[in-house]
């Protein structure tokens, strides 16, 4: 037997392109969120509510990632913001190259914030850096309060957790205190918001935080 000893990160190529994206966005002073969740947790609804509030005065541009259809991009386009839809045709996550291609197709003039809505999946997107400033994980109350323990990598890598569909708390077995404690034991620095896209609860707080964060980080800072 002969052995070739190497030390190569398997996702090196993706990481390289993600760094290029990060530089590209930093040069344009665009703060970038990579929004992840299970399918149906409410990523697009949160995005719509954020755009409805005009994200607290910020100019937002959007990249939508979906396995099939451009339904989400059409929902977002109603708010007259630049949006590019990436259809992955089966792939379970976005990769940095897809985002890079999308960035080159977009009009980013004057943009403060880029929101990338990832494919609904709490496993795979954790591995793929897209060049974002931070990951935002959305978790709905219907998914149960033990979800952070089942997907630690995603909750460990995120900077913000939006607990969505809190209007359904009376009808589901989800204890908000337990959910928070579970999330914080994975990631004690996680910033948590409780939101409902039905009642609008928590959306203003989230938008205020986003606005403050974009300013405080003098835009385009490195990811958390």
């Amino acid at each position, binding site marked *: *037997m002969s*052995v070739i000893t*190497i030390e190569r990160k*398997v996702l090196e190529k993706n990481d390289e392109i993600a760094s290029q994206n990060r530089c590209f966005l930093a040069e344009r002073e665009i703060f970038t969120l990579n929004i992840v969740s299970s399918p149906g947790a409410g990523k697009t609804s949160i995005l719509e509510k954020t755009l409805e509030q005009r994200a607290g005065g910020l100019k937002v541009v959007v990249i939508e990632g979906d396995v099939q259809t451009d339904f989400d991009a059409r929902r977002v386009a109603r708010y007259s913001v630049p949006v590019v839809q990436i259809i992955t045709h*089966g792939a379970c996550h976005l990769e940095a190259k897809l985002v890079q291609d999308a960035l080159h197709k977009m009009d980013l003039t004057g943009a403060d914030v880029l929101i990338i809505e990832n494919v609904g999946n709490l496993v795979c997107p954790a*591995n793929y850096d897209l060049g974002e400033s931070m990951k935002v994980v959305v978790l709905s109350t219907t998914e149960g309060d033990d979800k952070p323990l089942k997907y*630690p990598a995603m909750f460990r890598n995120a900077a913000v957790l939006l607990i969505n569909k809190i209007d359904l708390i009376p009808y589901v077995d989800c204890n908000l205190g337990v959910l928070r404690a579970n999330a914080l034991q994975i990631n004690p620095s996680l910033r948590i918001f409780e939101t409902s896209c039905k009642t609008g609860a928590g959306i203003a707080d989230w938008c205020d935080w986003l606005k403050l964060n974009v300013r405080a980080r003098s835009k385009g800072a490195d990811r958390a």
Partner: protein
Amino acid sequence: MLSLRFDWSAIMHELSIAQDILEIVNQYVAPGQMNAVRSVKLKLGKLSGVVPDSLEFCFGAIVSDTPLEQASLDIEQVPTRADCPECGNSFLIEDPVFFCSRCGSSAIRVVSGTELQVVAIELADQESKGT
């Protein structure tokens, strides 16, 4: 009639990771030597979110009927380990609880467990070809 269109990439990200591993092998092994590759050694962290069985399965699927057919993945699972700058403790994280096991500090640094690396490629010697 039942028609099944099996889209592998929809099943798991382990497939795209297996393809990335294959690409790394292609960079280090000459085309004529591909059939001598016996194993590709990987370090795989517990926190990497990659399932070893799925990755082995996907790798096997993409190398079948290719010169790499005899190659398998040799996966070394790396536990999640953290250091505590507050009390100097170094400890393993078994359950997903990211606090210092001694002083309870949350300021811990995860030092291993996120690995996803190719560390070696093993080739059979030319004379032992076919064994």
